[in-house]
């Protein structure tokens, strides 16, 4: 049974696998997951939320400069990233820390990136939350919204041209759908039948702008029709629905049938970032409503039905996650900033003569 047929029947209502009480609506849509998988998923969700909280707090303490948390949106990015195969590649926007964890990006490297220190794989070059981790097939995150969309298309297209198996997953928000890059990416994907999966995490806000003012058609999945691409709207707070949709989309991609746009409908539970103050524009009512639909809670109930979750288990993993985070932060905070030389590295494959002069100027000045 495909989500597609299900989605069509729902006429704009997002597809769910789990009810809000954690029970399964239709067994045929329930993804097969081992209990190990289920535990890994749950742990990653909890870890992500706790990590987000910790880093957010560290920013408030002045220990880091900036942070962006994904609280409430864990299912959307963790479920989809979990569904990808090793040979797939992820093009993240910036609000998918759990997807990075799923792909093996360590908490230590995470902390180093956020501190921008000498342990940072990106050498302190980018703002917090803009990591890159090639080993885990995570592309480099950049701030300009939407740019990763055609890039993901090109990447997947490369695999198609080379007749290889990789697919690309392109993550973005509802705000990103307004960019020219969204349009050109979707259009190229449609024309060239590229093995890409678009994952729009519709959290209904772009900084202060509600999605209803972002576009007159806030059912994002519908937009796929303009490109000859299949669009599926799922409940983004329903981990199993996200997994099922991503698996089907990836299977389709791999069998040469082209792209899918998955809209994961969710809600941004907190501020846009540590620089933001949602009291200036926020909508308390909607927030309260969505709090009840929390994705971790729903999955937890499912696990309880399955006999995996219980309060002790919760305590145990919370302790474990807390320790993991503390240890990573502690280790990372020991490291010094990157050396001045890093300023001039990685602009080109080699430092050209004029840049080398600039580099020398800095080291001589002992600035």
């Amino acid at each position: 049974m495909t989500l597609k047929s299900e989605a069509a029947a729902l006429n704009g209502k997002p597809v769910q696998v789990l009810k809000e009480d954690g029970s399964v609506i239709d067994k045929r849509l329930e993804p097969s997951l081992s209990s190990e998988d289920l535990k890994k998923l749950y742990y990653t969700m909890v870890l992500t939320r706790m990590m987000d909280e910790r880093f957010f707090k560290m920013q408030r303490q002045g220990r880091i400069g900036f942070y962006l948390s994904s609280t409430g949106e864990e299912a959307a990015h963790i479920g989809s990233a979990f569904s990808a195969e090793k040979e797939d590649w992820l093009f993240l926007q910036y609000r998918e820390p759990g997807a990075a964890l799923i792909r093996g990006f360590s908490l230590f490297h995470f902390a180093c990136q956020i501190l921008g220190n000498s342990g940072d794989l990106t050498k302190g070059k980018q703002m917090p939350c803009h990591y890159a981790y090639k080993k885990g097939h995570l592309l480099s995150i950049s701030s300009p919204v939407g740019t990763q969309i055609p890039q993901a298309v090109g990447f997947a297209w490369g695999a198609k041209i080379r007749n290889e198996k990789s697919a690309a997953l392109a993550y973005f928000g509802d705000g990103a759908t307004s960019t020219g890059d969204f349009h050109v990416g979707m259009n190229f994907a449609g024309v060239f039948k590229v093995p890409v999966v678009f994952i729009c995490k519709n959290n209904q806000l772009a900084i202060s702008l509600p999605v209803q003012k972002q576009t007159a058609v806030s059912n994002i999945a519908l937009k796929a029709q303009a490109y000859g691409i299949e669009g599926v709207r799922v409940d983004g707070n329903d981990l199993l629905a996200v997994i099922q949709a991503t698996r089907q989309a990836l299977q389709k991609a791999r069998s040469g049938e082209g792209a899918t746009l998955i809209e994961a409908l969710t809600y941004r539970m907190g501020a846009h970032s540590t620089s933001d103050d949602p009291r200036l524009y926020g909508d308390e009512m909607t927030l309260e409503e969505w709090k009840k639909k929390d994705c971790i809670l729903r999955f937890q109930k499912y696990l309880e039905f399955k006999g995996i979750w219980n309060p002790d288990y919760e305590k145990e993993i919370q302790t474990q996650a807390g320790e993991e985070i503390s240890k990573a932060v502690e280790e990372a905070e020991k490291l010094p900033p990157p050396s001045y030389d890093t300023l001039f590295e990685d602009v080109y494959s080699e430092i050209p003569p004029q840049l080398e002069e600039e580099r020398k100027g800095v080291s001589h000045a002992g600035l």
Partner: protein
Amino acid sequence: MPVYNLLQALNDALRTAMRKNDRVVILGEDVGKLGGVFRVTKDLQAEFGADRVIDTPLAEGGIIGTAIGMALYGLRPIAEIQFSDFIYPAFDQIVNELAKYRYRSGGQYECPVIIRTPSGGGIKGGLYHSQSPEAYFIHTPGLKVLMPSNPYDAKGLLLSALDQNDPVIFFEPKRIYRSAKGEVPESEYSVPIGKAEVVKQGKDVTLISYGAMMTESREAVEKALEEEVQVELIDLKSLVPLDVETVIGSVQKTGKVVIVNEAPRTCGFAAELVALINEKAFLYLEAPPVRVTGFDTPFPYTLEHVYLPSVDRILKAIRQTAHF
């Protein structure tokens, strides 16, 4: 006179302009209800309504493209680009359309769009919240390019921009949004476009800068004085059109020049100033003009203080020039 910081002065300028002329509209991302991520447009939507202070979808090309249409219709749109690092999706609309509209229509149409955008580093913004892209626009005929360094000029230049009929890129030095403070008249006034200011007179070296770098430049000039080097400090304010007279006049006096700006060095605005000075005051030059700029690399995060011209780097350049 109230003492305002740069944000308040800009907010005041916008309010003044909107009260005076109901054709002035503001559009951009988060400029309405939120009042802008830096709060430059604070409270304006409440006063002027959502029709005149417009929250747009996330599309810079759409913001500038529609602003061009509004200007052609006869409105006076002020478009905000949230960070100048995000101006590039609108680059085609700015460079191929906005800048060339009057020219290509043989003067039948004019297109007085003002684009306000915070620029420059020093706020720990990394590659994408720190860029200084003014050279791209200076190199584009048809645009005027302004950058104030203090609240008084910010208000006065913005009001002047609204009083003329050409497109303007108005860069706001975001690092000093809060720190730059000064007296700002409550009433309307203007700071002329195309005029630089000799902020401090001096006979030994001419130091030319603009925007946030005026802060470091001023400090370096003070320190140089302790070393008995009298530096003449010029705040350009208006990059296009440029006040060639003031620049050249000063160089003819001092024979020595240091130019300070944040952008990458190669093909930046400092290069243009050196070329101009060569063309117009070659025989007065007693030392090679020195550029103190950002490096030819993307803007870094952790080491931004090394990337940005510091008081020390400027001072070193002053010494080097003075004692050439």
